């Protein structure tokens, strides 16, 4: 045993003496360190490539405001000035303001558009109200990511309501004309909602609209997040009431039109789904936002997690497994999945994925420590991405494996080697193990170097956060290390294959070329066969598992195949590669033991 270890030591020394392999090894290690530094430098570079070019502005005067445009349209720095207040084009309300200003000028010059001059005046004053409303927002909110941007759309109805009730005495046809022009008002609705109610009710509604607007402006000016959420919840509850009303209407409709029952039932189901979504998804999330003070719009991991919860819950509500009978009735499902079992399998996998995403998001928010996926520029994410490094190490291992024995034949050194007092198998195994030791050392040290460099470049604190799984949170080391170590198996697999070929063919170039061609050809084959529904049998071959790292990395091509129904089983794949590697090694020993050294 001691002699064997010594032999391996000398074999390693022998391999490293090959300048070519030595340089590649060093390059592989350098890559691991340089990549994070490179990423850091490129992320710090200024993102805009437009340059410092300021053309002379063109000034256009609309009646209600002054619009300044640069010579080259679309190049930014367009501004609009209304009542001495200048708003530039990066403001989220710039386009609302400028389009209203433009349109006001346009309809003033095109008076024939309206039946009466009164209607024109009324329209202009409605637009003026809108303009003032947006101007108020534009002065406070200057950024699209500000949650209060969204608030502006929520208040529009109140602006209209207030305007209508203030002008309730205007003749109906004039009111209708300008409201129809501006907001597509339906005559029925105008009557029902605004005109044919008592004057007390009209006054109360005006008060309500004014009150609502005041509340809105209060949130806007004081940046009152709590009130904002309360307002949102209130509105969502109102939406539920509306939906329930619609359901009641539809139920009446069934009685009227029994023949349409199926279609109407579908509609009712959709409405009920919307209610459930608001009750179980939208409102709890708003409450969660309030509780955790997660302000929408801001580009924080909490917001990404929240939208993950929101979206995946919505996906879940739409992805329900239908019964076998229903499955048979839907030809596109039959065409895509062939059998019901496969359909259920695929759907279950999909549902599990959604549930998993929700779980990770919830746990991240609950612990106030983000999962890796919410910190894509962090050290953890980058370190996991670097698992793809194992692909390069696999190619390197193939290079050594194919070269190792064949080169002994090609150089003729095999003759001096085989006359030593060691059995052929011992010599072969010493060579086999020494090269794999080199590959594994480079792989592990490269991966660790990369992790450390990532820590230096992007902060070690990110490593301290946990990752989340169905079974709870785990620290990053326990998350990453098994994956990193598992990626050694494809390295060994490719290596043993090249090694066998090296013994068989005794030509290094061929012994290297065949596995590399297999690797590339395998990827192409997978891509071709998996286009539009994965070829399931591929999951039983080593092809997808040869790139084990991509199975671990989100949004990789193999992840896409899996979503398309490729029944990837990690344990199976790893066992398959181990068994095949063992067969390759045994086969190469047997062949090597029996053969004459003809060279």
């Amino acid at each position, binding site marked *: 045993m001691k*002699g064997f270890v*010594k*032999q391996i*030591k*000398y074999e390693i*020394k*022998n391999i490293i*003496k*090959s*300048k070519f392999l030595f340089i590649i090894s060093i390059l592989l290690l350098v890559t691991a360190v340089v990549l994070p530094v490179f990423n850091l430098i490129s992320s710090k570079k200024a993102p805009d490539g437009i340059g410092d070019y300021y053309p002379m502005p063109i000034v256009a005067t609309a009646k209600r405001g002054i619009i300044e445009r640069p010579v080259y349209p679309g190049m930014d720095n367009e501004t609009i000035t209304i009542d001495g207040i200048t708003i530039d084009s990066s403001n989220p309300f710039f386009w609302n303001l400028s389009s209203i200003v433009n349109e006001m000028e346009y309809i003033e010059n095109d008076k024939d558009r309206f039946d009466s001059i009164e209607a024109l005046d009324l329209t202009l004053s409605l637009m003026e109200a809108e303009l003032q409303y947006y101007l108020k927002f534009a002065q406070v909110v200057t950024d699209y990511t500000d949650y209060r941007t969204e608030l502006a759309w929520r208040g529009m109805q109140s602006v209209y309501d207030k305007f209508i009730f203030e002008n309730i005495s205007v003749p109906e046809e004039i009111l209708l004309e300008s409201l129809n022009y501006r907001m597509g008002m339906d005559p029925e609705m105008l009557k029902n909602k605004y005109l044919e109610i008592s004057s007390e009710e009209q006054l109360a509604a005006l008060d309500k609209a004014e009150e609502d607007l005041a509340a809105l402006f209060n949130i806007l000016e004081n940046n009152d997040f709590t009130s904002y959420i309360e307002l949102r919840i209130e509105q969502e509850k109102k939406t539920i009431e509306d939906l329930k009303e619609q359901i009641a209407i539809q139920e009446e409709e069934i009685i009227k039109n029994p023949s349409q029952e199926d279609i109407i039932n579908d509609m009712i189901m959709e409405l009920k789904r919307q209610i459930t979504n608001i009750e179980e998804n939208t409102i709890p999330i708003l409450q969660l936002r309030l509780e955790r003070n997660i302000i929408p719009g801001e580009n924080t991991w909490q917001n990404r997690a929240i939208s993950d919860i929101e979206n995946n819950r919505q996906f879940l509500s739409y992805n329900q497994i239908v019964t076998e009978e229903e499955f048979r009735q839907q030809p596109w499902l039959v065409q895509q999945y062939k059998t019901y079992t496969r359909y259920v399998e695929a759907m279950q996998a999909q549902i599990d994925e959604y549930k998993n995403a929700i779980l990770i998001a919830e746990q991240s928010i609950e612990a106030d420590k983000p999962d890796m996926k919410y910190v894509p520029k962090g050290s953890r994410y980058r370190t996991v991405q670097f698992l793809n490094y194992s692909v390069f190490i696999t190619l390197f291992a193939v290079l050594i494996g194919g070269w190792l024995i064949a080169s002994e034949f090609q*150089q*003729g*050194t095999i*003759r*001096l*080697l*085989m*006359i*030593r*007092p*060691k*059995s052929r198998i011992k*010599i072969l195994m010493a060579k086999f193990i020494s090269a794999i030791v080199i590959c594994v050392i480079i792989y592990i040290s490269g991966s660790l170097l990369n992790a450390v460099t990532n820590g230096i470049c992007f902060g070690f604190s990110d490593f301290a956060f946990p990752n989340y799984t169905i079974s709870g949170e785990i620290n990053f080391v326990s998350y990453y290390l098994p994956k990193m170590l598992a990626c050694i198996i494809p390295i060994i697999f490719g290596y043993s294959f090249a090694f066998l070929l090296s013994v068989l063919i005794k030509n290094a170039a061929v012994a290297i070329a065949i596995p590399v061609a297999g690797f590339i050809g395998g990827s192409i084959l997978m891509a071709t066969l998996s286009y539009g529904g994965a070829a399931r049998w591929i999951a039983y071959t080593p092809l997808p598992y040869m790139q084990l790292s991509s199975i671990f990395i989100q949004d990789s091509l193999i992840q896409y195949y899996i979503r398309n129904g490729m029944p990837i089983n990690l344990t199976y794949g790893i066992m398959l590669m181990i068994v095949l590697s063992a067969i390759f090694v045994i086969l190469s020993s047997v062949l090597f033991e*029996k*053969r*004459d*050294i003809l060279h």
Partner: protein
Amino acid sequence: MELLRVNNLTKIIKKKKILDKISLHVNSGEIVGFLGPNGAGKTTTIKLIMGLFRITEGEISICGHDVASDFENAMKHVGGIVENPDLYKRMTGRENLEYFASMHEGVTKESIDGIVELVKMSDRIDDKVKTYSLGMCQRIGIAQALLHNPKLLVLDEPTNGLDPIGIKELRDMLKYLSKEVGVGVFISSHLLSEMELMCDRIYIIDNGVIIGEKSIHQEEESVDDVIYQYTFVTSNNMKTLEYFKELQANCEIANGGVNVIMKRGEIPNIIAKLVQENILIYAVNQKHRSLEQDFISMTTGSKTQIR
């Protein structure tokens, strides 16, 4: 002591019989030559002895260890070169030796230094092998064969690429090793003159069969039986040639005389007979050695191969 024994060794490669029941042995302190034209089976025999080929039939034992069944122990006692001494070109001479030494037990750095000294490579041992000449590679090849102090040396054409001084040094070294240390040497070569100077005994192989065994120093004792080439310069070369032909001797006219190959003991009778026939004899030259002629007359291989 018998170091190498080959018994009824047969080797078949791709249905072709390369060796047919050859037997030979090498004793301690003996240098044994192995002669034969190209393709006779010399290298095949050596590869079989060194375990590079698998034996079809027969057996080989080194110091009592069977090569096929007890490879590791057999190889502990033998060092050798098979064909060219191909080394790792990317490494230095010393690294090559250290690498091979790692597969033997008990080879120290000092003993490597000693062997490098012995093959006179101390100056260049730390240079890369790719800068070496063939002769230098041959020296390192011999060094690696000696690393573990083997009892038996098996050398396949070790004089290839060596200059005349190198050949002399090798000869002296092998003589020293066999006579003083008691190493047995089994050596194959094309260079007959070399064999004669070096070997105690020679096996001649042709077409996979051993066709002769010569003991060089024995022959020197009974001089009359030794076959030489003689050149007769006479007054009537044609008549002399006819006379030799009657004796069915290997003869030809060359350089103004008649060349004939025969045993030393027969010459006085022939001279007497020629004198009786009234042929005047001006000179009779004896060529120093006649192993080459032995070899040529014994082998059926292409005679042009022998230089």
